[in-house]
Each structure stands twice: as structure tokens, then as C-alpha cells.
């Protein structure tokens, strides 16, 4: 299964890319995908622990235990310009 991963705004600059594709196994949850991504992009580990980041799946806010499907789009969103109250990822 292939998943598309996107980074926006400051995260795009810090990760050094705005988008990548990643192979995952079937029955992978969002939490497992994030773990796998952190192995491939060590910088992401620090970012997620130090910053407020919202993670969306197919442009909707997603729960960590949700299963990821083939072709899903997972995005890492820093706090919006409007100054939203932010939930730690």
C-alpha cells in the first residue's frame, strides 16, 4: 500500500520537503505510520515532540488508532495563521 504524506508551512521548511510517498503494510494505523515516518525522517521525531502539529487524513482531522488505506493522503499541519487552539499530535 502506498500513502502520500504532505508537510505544510514551517513543517515543510523543517522537514526539507513538502511531499513524499511511503510504502506501508495493510492494517497500519495512523500511529504506526507516524512511527515509520519518524524512522525515515529523524527530524520529524523532534518536531512532533516539540511543536504543536495537527495530523489530517484525506483532509479531515484523524484519530491515531484509525487504519490507513491505500492511496490515503496524510498531512502534517502546524498552527494556522488565525491562531487556533492547538491539540498536540
Amino acid at each position: 500500500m502506498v500513502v502520500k504524506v504532505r508537510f505544510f508551512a514551517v513543517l515543510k521548511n523543517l522537514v526539507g520537503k513538502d511531499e513524499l510517498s511511503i510504502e506501508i503494510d495493510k492494517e497500519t494505523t495512523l500511529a504506526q505510520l507516524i512511527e515509520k515516518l519518524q524512522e525515515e525522517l529523524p527530524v520529524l521525531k523532534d518536531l512532533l515532540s516539540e511543536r504543536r502539529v495537527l495530523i489530517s487524513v484525506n483532509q479531515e482531522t484523524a484519530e491515531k488508532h484509525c487504519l490507513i488505506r491505500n492511496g490515503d493522503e496524510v498531512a502534517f499541519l502546524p498552527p494556522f495563521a488565525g491562531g487556533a487552539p492547538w491539540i498536540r499530535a
Partner: protein
Amino acid sequence: MDTTTKKNTDRIRVQLEDFSVEEEINKIKGCSKRIGGIVAFLGAARDFSKGRDIQKIDFEHYPGMAETRLTEIREQALKDFDIIEVTIIHRVGKLSIGDNIVLIIVGAEHRADAFKGCSWSIDELKRITPIWKKETTPEGDVWVEEHP
């Protein structure tokens, strides 16, 4: 590079180009002869430098998701308030001080409803819409959160 996308309705737009407040108000007025009160909120790029030397401002959005959120805000406002029409437009890309950033227009029979619907919509826009702002300074780029 992200490009600007359009949603199913002309009332919801995320765009690079500037907009005309007058034109958008006239579209709202054209919807219904029952409209007696129109409230518009216009957010402009103010001189928020606070000592920093800002060379430009740049708005980025999550295409698709941003428009979906604005559409949801419009539909919720039409449901929750006694209003007739809502337009929401947000600009992205490079802007200068004084430039228009965001426009929300609400048309209603009575003014109190128009004020409530417009004020709620801009609060909600700020809260849930994936749009980010970058300021370019001589020291580099800074992604900022603001509360205008």
C-alpha cells in the same frame, strides 16, 4: 507548488487575486430582495512588524481542505443564524501591507442576525482553516500566528 483551487460555489473562494468588496456585496444583494442588512468583515494586512523589517508576507493554504472548511463554515452559519446569504473569500500568495486578506459578507433581513453571523464566521475561519502566514525579513523567513 500548491495552486489555487475553486469550490463548487462562487461564494467560497481561496484565490491569489484581489477581490472587489463592492462586487461581492452586489452579488449578495442580488440573491434576495428580502436582504435589508449586510455586514462585511474585511481583514487587511496591517503594519504588524513591531520593529521587525518585513519585506513581504506570504499566505499558504492546504488546497481542498481550506475550501472545504470555508464551505462548512458557510453552511453552518446559514443553519445557525437567521441569515440569507454568506460569501467567504481568502487570498493566498504574496501580499503587501494594506492589501486585502479576507472578506466575509453576510446578508440578512435584519441587521442583528447579519452581525452575529459575520462575527461567528470570521472567528470560526481563524480557528479551523488551514492557512499559514510567512513573513520575509532580512534575517530570514518567519512563520507567524496572528490574532487580528
